[in-house]
């Protein structure tokens, strides 16, 4: 309700300011041919921006500090003798009750007289401050409007001013990317640091037992060794790469070198459909189809394969990565200059010999870069392993057994619980930081290789 009123008034002010700037600059144009520097819509925007800035600043300040001021006022409404008897939790509850009384939704149960009085006082306070702040903001906006309007004359460079503001807004938008990174790093590092005040970093990075005591009390938190998770992650990634690299690379070679145009036009988008399928779907597919199939296959040839195992998750993750490998390899193969290929043909090489002995070596660094990017994807993948890897954080080397990965443990430690007071949930951030650093490192190396290789022939 309040937000709607504010938004409505802001729109009115905006329209008013634009219109007044626009009409005033129109008035400048006279029959004797005074030339104005900027077109009327720039003058309108100029005045509108002038009017908006102080209004938004005041409203923003209130949004930021208003809550604290209201809270202080509410606390001052509580009688001293009652105040003495309240602890922190009780105080918060009292503030919430007074707030509920003031908003008119009422509270359950009887409320003492002082609470009623405090609720009434808070209501009038809220009303007063809301109207006060709004009036202040509108007056400031109006004053700015009048001032900006008075500055309009034929030589005012309104367009340049407006464009400067647009530029600033664009800059602010691109700063969001930086802020996101800062937010990721800051939240991961601070929470991971808090985790390391509970558990020694050495025990975390080199511990071989992962057994968080989720119901544990202080002092009995369980063990948080990273190595079982890391080994599970690496095992699944290795299996995924064993599937994705040959299939993806051969598919790229076939599509870019051999396939007739019609086949290419059909097969390429078909393979890329794989890239658009949500990972939860792959996870379900792995769990209900691939896992049981592998188990039955294992029974047939006398191997004991678990339905949820590193193998299941790895194979399906490999399928997921195929289009990633194939489209990157395709790009890189196409960038090898024609002259190299024609040279090989000129010497009498067959097509496959040219590919194996000329194209692939020439494209090798780029392909390695593509593989590294694929590896970093596999390491960070979550839903497939959550569903199909079996979640057994034990250090072992058998791919037919269940394993756990870093991402699975993050999900397990953090789902539903955002009370970051114990290592049970804080460990999620330490794991996230590890994951972030590993994937970031891989990405940087991969991008460096890919980019360097691309420049080679340009």
């Amino acid at each position, binding site marked *: 309700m309040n937000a709607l009123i504010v938004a409505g008034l802001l729109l009115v002010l905006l329209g008013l300011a634009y219109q007044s700037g626009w009409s005033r600059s129109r008035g400048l144009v006279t029959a004797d041919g005074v030339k104005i520097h900027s077109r009327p819509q720039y003058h309108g925007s100029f005045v509108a921006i002038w009017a908006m800035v102080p209004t938004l600043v005041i409203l923003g300040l209130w949004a930021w500090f208003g809550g604290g001021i209201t809270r202080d006022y509410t606390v001052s409404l509580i009688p001293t003798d009652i105040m003495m008897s309240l602890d922190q939790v009780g105080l918060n509850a009292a503030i919430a009750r007074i707030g509920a009384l003031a908003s008119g939704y009422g509270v359950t149960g009887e409320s003492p007289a002082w609470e009623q009085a405090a609720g009434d006082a808070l209501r009038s306070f809220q009303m007063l401050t809301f109207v006060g702040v709004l009036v202040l903001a509108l007056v400031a906006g109006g004053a700015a409007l009048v001032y900006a309007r008075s500055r309009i004359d034929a030589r005012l460079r309104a367009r340049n001013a407006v464009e400067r503001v647009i530029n600033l807004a664009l800059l602010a938008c691109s700063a969001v990317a930086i802020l996101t*990174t800062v937010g990721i790093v800051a*939240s991961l590092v601070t929470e991971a640091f808090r985790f390391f005040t509970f558990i020694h970093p050495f025990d975390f990075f080199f511990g071989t037992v992962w057994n968080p005591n989720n119901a544990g009390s202080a002092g009995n938190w369980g063990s948080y060794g990273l190595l079982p998770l890391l080994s599970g992650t690496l095992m699944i990634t290795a299996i995924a790469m064993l599937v994705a690299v040959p299939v993806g690379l051969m598919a790229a070679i076939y599509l870019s070198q051999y396939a007739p145009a019609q086949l290419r036009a059909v097969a390429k988008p078909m393979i890329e459909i794989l890239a658009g399928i*949500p990972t939860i779907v792959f996870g379900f597919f792995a769990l209900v189809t691939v896992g049981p199939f592998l188990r039955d296959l294992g029974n047939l040839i006398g191997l004991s394969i678990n339905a949820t195992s590193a193998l299941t998750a790895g194979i399906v993750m490999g399928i997921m990565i195929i289009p990633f490998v194939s489209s990157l390899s395709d790009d890189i193969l196409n960038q090898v200059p024609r002259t190299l290929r024609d040279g090989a043909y000129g010497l009498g090489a067959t097509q496959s010999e040219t590919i194996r002995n000329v194209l692939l070596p020439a494209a090798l660094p780029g392909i390695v870069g593509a593989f590294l990017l694929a590896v970093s994807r596999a390491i960070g993948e979550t839903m497939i392993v959550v569903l199909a890897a079996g979640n057994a954080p034990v250090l072992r080397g058998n791919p037919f057994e269940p394993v756990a990965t870093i991402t699975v443990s993050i999900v397990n430690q953090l789902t539903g619980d955002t009370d970051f007071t114990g290592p049970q949930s804080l460990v999620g951030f330490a794991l996230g930081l590890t994951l972030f650093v590993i994937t970031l490192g891989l990405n940087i190396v991969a991008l460096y290789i890919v980019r360097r290789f691309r420049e080679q022939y340009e």
Partner: protein
Amino acid sequence: MTDTLSTTRQASLERTQRIRAGLRRRHLGETIFRGLGLAAIVLALGFVALLFVDVVRKGVPAFTQSNLHLAVNFDPEVVKVDPAPVRDAFASQAEYTAASLKWQRDVALLNWNKVVEASLRAAAPADFEIDSRQILSIAETDARHDIREMFVADPSLLGQTVEVDVLASANAANWIKGNIDRSLGDAQQQLSAPARALIDQFVDNGTISNGFAWSIFTNVDSRAAPASAGLLGAFVGTIWMMLIVIILAVPIGVAAAVYLEEFAPRSRWTDLIEVNINNLAAVPSIVFGLLGAAVFINYMHLPISAPIVGGLVLTLMTLPTIIIATRGALQGVSPALRQAALGMGASRTQMVFHHVLPVTFPSILTATIIGVAQALGETAPLLLIGMKAFVASVPLTPLDQATALPVQIYLWQGNENRNFFEPRTAAAIMVLLAVMILLNGVAIYLRSRLEKRA
């Protein structure tokens, strides 16, 4: 003389043969290599086909549901309640509200299971031996709520008999669809022997019939009544999140790309932003979930399990995709267009906003749709911000508790009632994939249509 000739001929013949043999070997290698490439394509396409066929095969049964056609008798002996209060001219609004609330409370306290049971017994053969718990296990547990709602909406039904369709229970549906091995003994069956026999009779006499399961689309998730669990809540939650992503990610992403491509001075600061965006695009999605949990929920105290937090997290994830795609599109605009605009006296800003951006509009639009489609399928970060909580209502605002389509899939696949929920999960996946294919189709259509015109 002839000797030497024949030796040279011999030698050349041998050489030819050696070359032929070599060629044969090389051509065999060629064929094998080519075959391997084709095999890779077939394998990859086979995976796509297998996945789709498998999901559809598993999901299709969930689109039929078993309905019970019952003649429900609102017997005054069972529905013992005063007549509903009527609004008369003399009573005040408050009195009327109090009276009607009391009446609704009375209605709610009645044992509606008896009504359901009586109508089931009426449909069963006359001397069929079955106790009330067993016979009630045939109908969905929320059938009594439906019947009560009917009565509250129309109190004049008292004493009448009406035809009502209610859902059969999940166990009954499993039995009818043959998901359960019928030869198993009583101990391993969910339903008792008389109940199973009665279900078969109901199927024979037409009391139970199968129809299209509209309830999947019109109901919210349910734990007590699995047969009526639907996707509506998750769907609306997803729509809220997508709206937030579109409202925030598209303008910010396009603006950032425009700044970096058109205005930014080549400085260390802009290099930093550029490297950053490339890295952000490759950060695992679950890390964004950690960011959301720490910053939006723990620090800013935004509501947990709410689409607004999910939307913000997905926005941050989608931004790099949109920025990178928009930059690509901007780089593709021919310099002639820019120079012509500048030459006619446009300022840089006018050139960008009046000439360059409109030309790139189709590419930006398609990139946006593809980015949104990616965000739509994202699950892992949503788990960390509490969106896997069970929610049995439609979120009316972005601040309400909600879940999303992919998370609903995750929840359903983890349900204990597996043989009932596996088809449901596959059906939900079909809905999700249909939405994704639709979005991608729209993107492809727009690209082909708009780019031709430009």
